[in-house]
């Protein structure tokens, strides 16, 4: 086989792959999928907390993208386009299942006051400057769906509050305050986890 006839997969960069995919090239679709599959699947998994749903949504996000790839003109980055599409697919699914996309505020004023009071009585309860990634992943999975959505979109995916507000239909202020509560909840979950670990060792 000559160089010209060898599969082009390894030589293709993303831009070439997009152009080839527009022509229906199977290898180009596969390359685009391979380049972005982990990011999209991880996003779907973090937001749903369910492997089967994450697989379905990953497939749906890529399917929607590939159906529209002929319309991609490169005004924004391909990854930006894909990730936004994946977020929309997940949010639509959450809405279909009547899961809260905007966090349901479940803390009362009294409970909020307790956050600092707990701190005052527990000077050694910090996270000690490091978090195990697996523990963080489990803690995120344990967040209520609404909090999880905001946290994943902002802290994991890097969206700004104005983008999140537009995506999920809430105010920027609401996005900020709910993100704060999500982080506080995560901190509590991680501290419980850390305390259990210490107790096991002693």
């Amino acid at each position: 086989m000559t160089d010209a006839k060898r599969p082009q997969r390894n030589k293709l960069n993303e831009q070439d792959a997009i152009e080839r995919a527009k022509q229906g090239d199977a290898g180009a679709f596969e390359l685009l999928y391979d380049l972005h599959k982990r990011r999209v699947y991880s996003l779907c998994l973090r937001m749903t907390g369910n492997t089967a749903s994450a697989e379905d949504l990953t497939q749906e996000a890529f399917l929607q993208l590939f159906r529209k790839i002929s319309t991609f003109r490169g005004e924004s980055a391909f990854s930006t386009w894909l990730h936004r599409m994946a977020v929309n697919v997940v949010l639509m699914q959450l809405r279909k299942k009547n899961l809260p996309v905007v966090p349901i505020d479940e803390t009362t004023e009294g409970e909020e006051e307790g956050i600092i009071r707990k701190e005052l009585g527990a000077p050694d309860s910090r996270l000690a400057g490091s978090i195990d990634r697996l523990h963080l992943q489990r803690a995120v999975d344990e967040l209520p769906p609404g909090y999880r959505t905001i946290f994943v979109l902002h802290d994991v995916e890097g969206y700004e509050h104005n983008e999140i507000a537009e995506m999920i239909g809430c105010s920027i202020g609401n996005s900020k305050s709910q993100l704060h509560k999500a982080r506080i909840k995560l901190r509590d979950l991680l501290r419980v986890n850390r305390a259990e670990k210490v107790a096991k060792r002693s």
Partner: protein
Amino acid sequence: MNCLQFENALPDYLEGDGTSEQRAHLNSCSACSGLLADLNLISSEASSLRELDEPSVRIWNSLEAQLRREGIIKQPARSSQLDFFHRWRTAWLVPVAAALLIAAGIKLYQPAKIGDNQPVVKVITPAVPAAPVVSAEDKAILSTVASRPPAQVAAYRNDLAQANSFIRDAQEAVRNDPNDIYSQQLLMNAYEQKQMVYRLAVDQDNEDEQ
């Protein structure tokens, strides 16, 4: 400024809108500076979850099939299965490694031996059948593919052995911690991997007959 006032203003402070009064409070309050450090840590570590998980290969398989059905992929399907096997074999090293790590981790973190004076608690584990090295079903599948080229037969045999090994490791993890959802998920993944090998053999067999 007291701690409660500081915490109420924390979402804005984290966005970079801190006042000198808030900064002064931070300098004098270890509880609030600890809280802030933890929240910043959580936020900075979050991006490590961005590409954490490897999706199952079946997503691409069904996506590709759908793209072909809709005419979006315009090329004929590959006649050889070798590409698939290559992809499959490397992709599932990740869950196999995860299963081994979990099993090793469980062993490392097992509590010290129960003393004579302590009551013995009997742990009831679910009845998970052990996967034999070559089951009757494996033999049937291997006989189905026996007439194919030796390289393909060897690939099927190797993939079956790997699937069985993966199942055994996942079973071990489930036996050690029956309530751990990650071990349960690993076991499900292991069975799905084996199911894929079976399906591939049967599908190819049907294509050959047509």
